[in-house]
């Protein structure tokens, strides 16, 4: 096999007219993509544009309906990741494919142990050597569940390198990192590029694509819009290719005068999974008509904070006063009754996928679902038709929630919560996985609630979203508030340092 750098005449991998259909949806249609050794190739597109499907095909996780894959100019068939790995392709997926109870070494050698009996010491040496060469430092004996997200990503890259990959696919690798970690990742990728590797960088963040990539391919509705040298375009041009029209400027945020305190959290502590401390002495207040953003690298207590505020997790200490009612330690029922609207990070944990839209819309208020314990089916249906209209949900009342698109599922959840005009709203990752249209819809609804005087706590891993929507920000690190920032004066670098645990300089 020829090393990639030696034969610049053929691309390492070439995809020719790849097509893939899921039901009625064409996820990929006639996609051509060539990857050369020594380049970083950006693949850009909205959610649902077909980026991930294309990469799953390249990694053997999905079989295309049509088209060919060439490796070093020879036709190849990938029936499973095993074939792709054999052809020198490695992939770091968005949700890491790592086994949490196993050690770093075990994860890296999994599937390529090189013998029937595990030689963990030799494997450890190999891991350390690879780590030194590319500046990817992790301790080989630690369990995956003890690592930070950034470290886990390094393990994923090491895993690919250990398999001697020549093509490395990274699916939205920066979504979960601090700005500083992103810089370290880019440095590693530069080194890998210099060593002759072909790198596929999937993203929807334009500045990162502009900074890092050599060439970029833009996908829209499953088709390639353009493939160009990055130098020859600007961010605005890429954005318009991505959405098919000039990008609309974000709706200007109207100034609103915060009112009285509607949510008061004092000395709040809680434990997370395995009874480890997850929140320590958290204090904050949110005024009516104000959005408080909660920033932080995932795993620093945001999930637990959202759960405690939603009544899904008991705090070990502290008080939460929502609209005058003490809700610390209360269950979901009392929290709802206190006027708190809750939109959790995982929509599927709030809605029953196998139930109808109508039933899900009434689920938080079952006392209104019947007359004397018997279901009032007309009323449930009327309520559903009303909300479907008001929140322009594309579904019928009898459709099962699991058959809806992500955006419509989120609208069902918003409808259930917002129609009650809650005084306090706890919302996590409201736009995760949504396309641009649905994202704008959700953000505008939240801003509308703010105008109406709701106090909103917004947890998000998307710094841009936090900066766009919030009035004030708090940064969580290791379960504590590492800093408080006014959104208007926020500086991304300063936020990054706080997210990485550098405490506020007084």
């Amino acid at each position, binding site marked *: 096999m020829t090393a990639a750098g030696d034969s610049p005449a053929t691309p390492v991998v070439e995809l020719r007219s790849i097509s893939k259909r*899921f039901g009625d949806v064409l996820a990929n249609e006639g996609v051509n993509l060539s990857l050369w050794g020594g380049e970083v190739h950006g693949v850009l597109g909205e959610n649902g544009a077909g980026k991930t499907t294309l990469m799953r095909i390249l*990694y053997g*996780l*999905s079989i295309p309906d049509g088209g060919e894959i060439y490796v070093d100019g020879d036709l190849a068939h990938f029936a*499973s*990741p*095993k074939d792709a*790995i*054999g052809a020198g392709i490695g*992939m770091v*997926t968005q*949700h*890491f*494919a*790592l*086994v*949490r*109870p*196993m050690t770093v070494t*075990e*994860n890296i*050698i*999994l*599937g*390529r*142990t090189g*013998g*029937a*009996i*595990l030689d963990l010491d030799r494997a450890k040496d190999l891991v350390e050597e690879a780590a030194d060469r590319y500046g990817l430092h992790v301790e080989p004996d630690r369990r995956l569940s003890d690592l930070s997200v950034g470290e886990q990503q390094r393990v994923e890259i090491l*895993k690919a390198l250990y398999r001697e990959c020549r093509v490395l696919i990274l699916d939205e690798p920066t979504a979960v990192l601090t700005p500083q970690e992103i810089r370290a990742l880019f440095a590693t990728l530069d080194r890998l590029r210099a060593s002759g590797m072909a790198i596929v960088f999937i993203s929807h963040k334009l500045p990162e694509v502009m900074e890092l990539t050599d060439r970029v391919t833009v996908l829209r509705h499953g088709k390639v819009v353009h493939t160009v040298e990055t130098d020859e375009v600007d961010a605005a041009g890429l954005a318009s290719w991505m959405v098919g029209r000039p990008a609309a400027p974000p709706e200007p945020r109207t100034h609103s005068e915060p009112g009285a305190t509607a949510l008061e959290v004092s000395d709040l502590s809680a434990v997370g999974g395995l009874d480890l401390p997850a929140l320590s002495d958290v204090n904050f207040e949110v005024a009516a008509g104000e959005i408080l953003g909660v920033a932080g690298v995932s795993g620093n207590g945001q999930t637990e904070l959202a759960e405690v505020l939603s009544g899904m997790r008991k705090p070990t200490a502290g008080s939460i006063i929502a609209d005058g009612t003490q809700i610390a330690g209360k269950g979901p029922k009392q929290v709802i009754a206190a006027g708190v609207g809750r939109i959790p990070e995982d929509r599927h944990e709030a809605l029953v996928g196998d139930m109808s839209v109508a039933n899900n819309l009434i689920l938080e208020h079952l006392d209104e679902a019947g007359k004397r314990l018997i279901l009032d089916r007309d009323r449930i249906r009327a309520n559903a038709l009303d909300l479907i209209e008001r929140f322009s949900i594309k579904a019928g009342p009898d459709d099962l929630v699991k058959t809806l698109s992500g955006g419509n599922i989120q609208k069902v959840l918003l409808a259930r919560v917002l129609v009650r005009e809650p005084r306090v709203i706890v919302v996590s990752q409201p736009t995760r996985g949504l396309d641009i249209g649905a994202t704008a819809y959700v953000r505008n609804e939240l801003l509308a609630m703010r105008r109406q005087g709701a106090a909103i706590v917004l947890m998000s891993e998307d710094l841009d979203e936090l900066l766009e929507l919030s009035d004030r920000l708090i940064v969580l690190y290791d379960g504590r508030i590492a800093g408080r920032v006014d959104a208007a004066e926020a500086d991304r670098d300063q936020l990054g340092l706080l997210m990485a645990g550098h405490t506020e300089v007084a």
Partner: protein
Amino acid sequence: MIFLLDILTATLRNATPLVFGVVGETYTERAGILNLGIEGTMYAGAFFGFAATAVTGSLELGILAAIVVGVASGAVMGLFSVTLGTSQHVAGIGLTLGLIGISEFINRLYFGSSEGLRRIESYQLLEPFGPDNIFNQYALTYIAFLVVAPLGWWVLRSTSFGLGIRAVGENPEAADAAGLSVSLYRYAALMIGSALAAVGGAFITLATLGTFTLGIIAGRGWVVIALVIFGRWRIWRGVFGALVFAGVFSLQLRLRILPGWDAVPFELLLALPYLVVIAALAISGRNVEYPGAYLKPYRRD
């Protein structure tokens, strides 16, 4: 002294089928599958082991028959839980009902009840240190404790195969992305696990009883499932659990013949080991960490 020795000897013997089952089911569950077919697999192992020996006169062929039945039963469970992705509870119960039905059907057909119990020349006790000591055990007991359990532990911990089993049970997506065939590992775990369970069942007919009677397994398969959870999917903890169950079981057998104990119905003493296992689960089984992909079928798309 003799009483104690007696109980210890009986404990090792009564623990033997459970050790086979526990090691086997630990493999299956570490790969992410709850095999409720194990009760029927032990039953079929007991019957077909007995039947093969009764027909051929060879105990080794009896064991071989049990292994074949076990592998086949694991493959059927794999068809449902791995290939088709059905509910593991329902498939396992169905398998158990089917295997017990088939065993009793063939038993009725060929070893009909009219002529009374048919006996076989069963395994003899080994007496490496002369009579009347704790080492007077069947060869299969030695194999269970000195080969199956340690080898099972070592393979799971220190081999590529074991690593693969653990990976497909914790995170099949990760195992798939690393180039392992999730189905292959899960089928393998099921076949190995079921073969061991079947041999455990055959131990009862080919060694301790020398014959086959209806209802012979009497919930031992369910006990095995409980012991695996009690053992938190660690082989040695599971084996320890098997010894505890067998200890209580042997104790009640001996208590029955002691003066003063005959007032207690022996069936209630017989129920004691089951209750002990439930109590053990209640004490140690609180919020245990199940294998990450427990009960979850894996599909790529």
